């Protein structure tokens, strides 16, 4: 790319971010401070902090985020450590399955969880049949603590993000660092705490931050658990009367500021020191073989976590195939009716079409923007390119709900982007919303590709008469195709699973994407959950193939995509 083109790319991406990232956030924030007749007022914000219901919601959201992150870490850290250090049976199988928990359309998973852990669910039925429980007074596993349920669901859903970061970080630790500690008499847990943990802190922080923000702003799971007293759900409920009610705006503002404050706070506490590894690894690390007993223990641990993580999936699949399932261990009978009903419902086929359309267009936008941004950041010396890089990563740090809300506000009649009003046709704004949220994955993978591909390959082409832009297309892009495909696949998968934008911006039935269709189907009386599950199974199968493809292409580098 020549300098003028780089400038144009820079300007266009900057403009894109200004309009579709800064502006919606600004809209959301300003909505929180605008009086009915115009003019500034802090009254709504103050009211948020006075109203005990909103305060409780905020406190619950913080708890949800903290506990989810802690539980995620408790799951991911041992797993990552075992993977990094030891060889054990079926290790490759579990490594390949690691992303499976992520391909769960979030609230479909909750259906599965309820089916298994609910009062009339499979677990209670199992316990009763074993005589461990009185069937007349079943234990309410989920109702006992809605917060607990949401936290467990979040952790089982999100641990792969942290796991991938930790595995990558552990692989970067020079084994000699630990050997030096051992040589000086520091071993075991003490060595882990004093040497290993500080060295992997950047990876831990990077993954932990994403998990934290994800959990703090999660909408789908608490909605399914009917957990009303969290900020995200309160915002969602407040939507129904967006025209007049300023409180959703005020809540969103509070959520955004809290996210930033919590992020800054955690960065101060944990993310400060990034110890660059100075020396080259002197000894070859790598996992080592261990005795059969501990090896099988590792396998059992992995199997256990994976089983728990895919329990919702199993639940969903069983629900989707079951004639009826109430108070028994396994469904009473099997049927394909729900798949037929799901496909036959007039919501379904259009929603699949819509989702494919939105997600592929968004992926296309992401690829174009992502390659442009990654190119400017890695290959040019334009002033301000670091800013562009940071900007491209920011969507990871901003709650989906905040952006979704901003998009809604900025497309209201009378605004600059009224022509994109989702009430008329949500295509443009949804594609933009999806692509902004998923852009970081594509930028990261494209940048990694550019960094691994020598500039001289492109220069050689230019020297032989190939104009810069064509040199990029003919030489570098084919060489980084694998990175782009992997990034694109992830962007596509997560766009298909997107909740916040989908629920808020798709307002007419014919525009619903698949996630909102599942949500609507679930609310049908009678066999709603069966039909929703059937549709969820379809989505899971589809995304499973996509993510498996991405992990095969990217291998270990997959972890690098989930970094802030």
């Amino acid at each position: 790319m020549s300098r003028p083109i780089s400038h144009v790319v820079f300007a266009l991406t900057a403009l894109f971010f200004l309009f579709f990232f800064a502006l919606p956030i600004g809209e959301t924030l300003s909505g929180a401070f605008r009086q009915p007749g115009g003019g500034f007022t802090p009254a709504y914000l103050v009211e948020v902090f006075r109203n005990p219901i909103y305060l409780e919601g905020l406190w619950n959201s913080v708890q949800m985020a903290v506990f989810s992150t802690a539980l995620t870490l408790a799951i991911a850290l041992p797993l990552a450590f075992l993977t990094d250090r030891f060889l054990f049976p079926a290790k490759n199988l579990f490594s390949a399955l690691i992303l499976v928990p992520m391909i769960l359309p979030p609230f479909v998973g909750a259906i599965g969880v309820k089916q298994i852990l609910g009062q009339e669910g499979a677990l209670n039925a199992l316990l009763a049949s074993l005589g461990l429980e009185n069937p007349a007074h079943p234990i309410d596993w989920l109702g006992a603590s809605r917060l607990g349920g949401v936290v467990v669901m979040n952790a089982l859903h999100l641990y792969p993000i942290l796991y991938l970061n930790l595995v990558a970080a552990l692989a970067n630790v020079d084994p000699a660092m630990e050997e030096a500690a051992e040589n000086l008499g520091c071993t075991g847990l003490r060595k882990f705490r004093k040497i290993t943990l500080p060295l992997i802190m950047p990876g831990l922080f990077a993954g932990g931050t994403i998990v934290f923000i994800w959990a703090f702003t999660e909408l789908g799971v608490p909605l399914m658990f009917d957990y009303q007293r969290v900020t995200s759900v309160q915002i969602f409920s407040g939507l129904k009367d967006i025209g007049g009610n300023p409180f959703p705006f005020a809540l969103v503002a509070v959520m955004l500021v809290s996210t930033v404050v919590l992020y800054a706070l955690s960065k101060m506490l944990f993310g400060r020191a990034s110890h660059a590894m100075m020396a080259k690894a002197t000894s070859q690390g790598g996992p080592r073989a261990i005795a059969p007993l501990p090896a099988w223990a590792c396998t059992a641990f992995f199997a256990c976590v994976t089983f728990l993580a895919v329990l919702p999936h199993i639940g969903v699949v069983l629900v989707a195939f079951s004639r009826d399932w109430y108070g028994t261990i396994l469904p009473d009978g099997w049927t394909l009716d729900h798949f037929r009903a799901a496909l036959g419902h007039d919501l379904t086929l259009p929603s699949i079409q819509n989702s494919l359309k939105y997600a592929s267009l968004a992926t296309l936008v992401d690829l174009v923007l992502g390659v442009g941004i990654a190119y400017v950041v890695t290959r040019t010396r334009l002033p301000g390119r670091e800013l562009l890089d940071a900007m491209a990563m920011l969507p990871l740090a901003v709650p989906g709900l905040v952006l979704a809300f901003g998009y809604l506000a900025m497309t209201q009649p009378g605004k600059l982007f009224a022509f994109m009003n989702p009430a008329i046709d949500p295509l443009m704004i949804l594609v933009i919303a999806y692509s902004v949220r998923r852009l970081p994955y594509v930028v990261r993978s494209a940048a990694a590709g550019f960094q691994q591909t020598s500039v001289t390959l492109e220069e050689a082409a230019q020297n032989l008469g190939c104009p810069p832009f064509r040199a990029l297309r003919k030489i570098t892009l084919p060489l980084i195709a694998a990175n782009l495909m992997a990034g694109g696949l992830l962007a596509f998968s997560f766009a298909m699973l997107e909740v916040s934008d989908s629920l808020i911006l798709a307002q007419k039935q014919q525009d619903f994407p698949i996630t909102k269709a599942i949500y609507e189907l679930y609310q049908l009386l009678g066999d709603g959950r069966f039909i929703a599950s059937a549709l969820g199974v379809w989505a899971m199968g589809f995304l499973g193939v996509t993510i498996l493809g991405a992990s095969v292409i990217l291998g270990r580098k997959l972890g690098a995509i989930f970094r802030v």
Partner: protein
Amino acid sequence: MISISVENLVKKFDENVALNGVTFRIEPGEIFFLLGPSGCGKTTLLRNIAGFYIPDSGRILFGEDDVTRLPPHKRNTGMMFQSYALWPHLTVAQNVGFGLVERKIPRAEITGRVASALESVKMAPYAARRIAQLSGGQQQRVALARALVIRPRALLLDEPLSNLDAKLRLEMRIEIRRVCKEYGLTAIYVTHDQKEALSISDRMAILDGGRIAQIGGPQAVYRRPQSKTVADFIGETNFIEGKILESQPGSARVETPLGVFDGIVSDPGWQPKPGESATLSVRPECWRIETARPTRNAAAGRIGESIYLGEVAQYQFDTPAASLKILELNPDLARRPQDRELYATADPDDVVILRK
């Protein structure tokens, strides 16, 4: 065949001045070397000529064309990169044919020209191979063929032999010179290997700190270095400090702690005055060791450490004032007793007098 002129080229990276007013002219068909220690600006200069850097000021002319701001793909130069920059996703033939495809040459002609280019570097049997299946030397030949097949106005070589082993390097040196002369190419060759420069260049420029220290043919640069930097960088030498006794145009007599020496003043811009400080540069192979005191240009001393290398021997010749490095061809160490005083002497023609 074109000439290449560089006029007053200045290139800065932030505060670092990489090129500080470089001027020279390369004649059509000449093999011109850019030589210097790492960080001297030689690769920066080459990249300016290729178009990958735009200079802050100054001009670059290909013949009469001002190409200073022309983008690289319009300059029609063939460049060989230090890393070869062969594309791993294309075959050998596709790599070589790339520039021709860009020039929209008919397919049939491309096939023919690629075949003959591969033939000329003895790589024809490997046309269908992938780059990863080639050895270092083979990759280097493909890179050369790729740069030549487009019939460039000029061939630019950026340390093309630095990744090869010594034997292959020797072979490829001769190959590159043969090909350049055969195609009648104006070539610019960047290296830090002085042997490479001395053996195949027509002329060379020695760069130091972003400036040209000296331009000349291999013999001129080696035998008549005009500064201490050049004398030190090209080949080995003995520096002896002294004071000018008397001088004529082009020559002078210098008094040193080792004795009085007659020599050549190589820098045409310097007419030394009696009493001025000067440095003598005498190459190790220019010394002869005598048993009887020569009439002039002699230093008395004893042989210290000696290293026998077969065709030559390397002596450390200890005088009361300094220790000299001396090379003797076809040595017979038995004739060189270490316990008696000997004399080292050099022809006035081999003694170069430099500004201190």
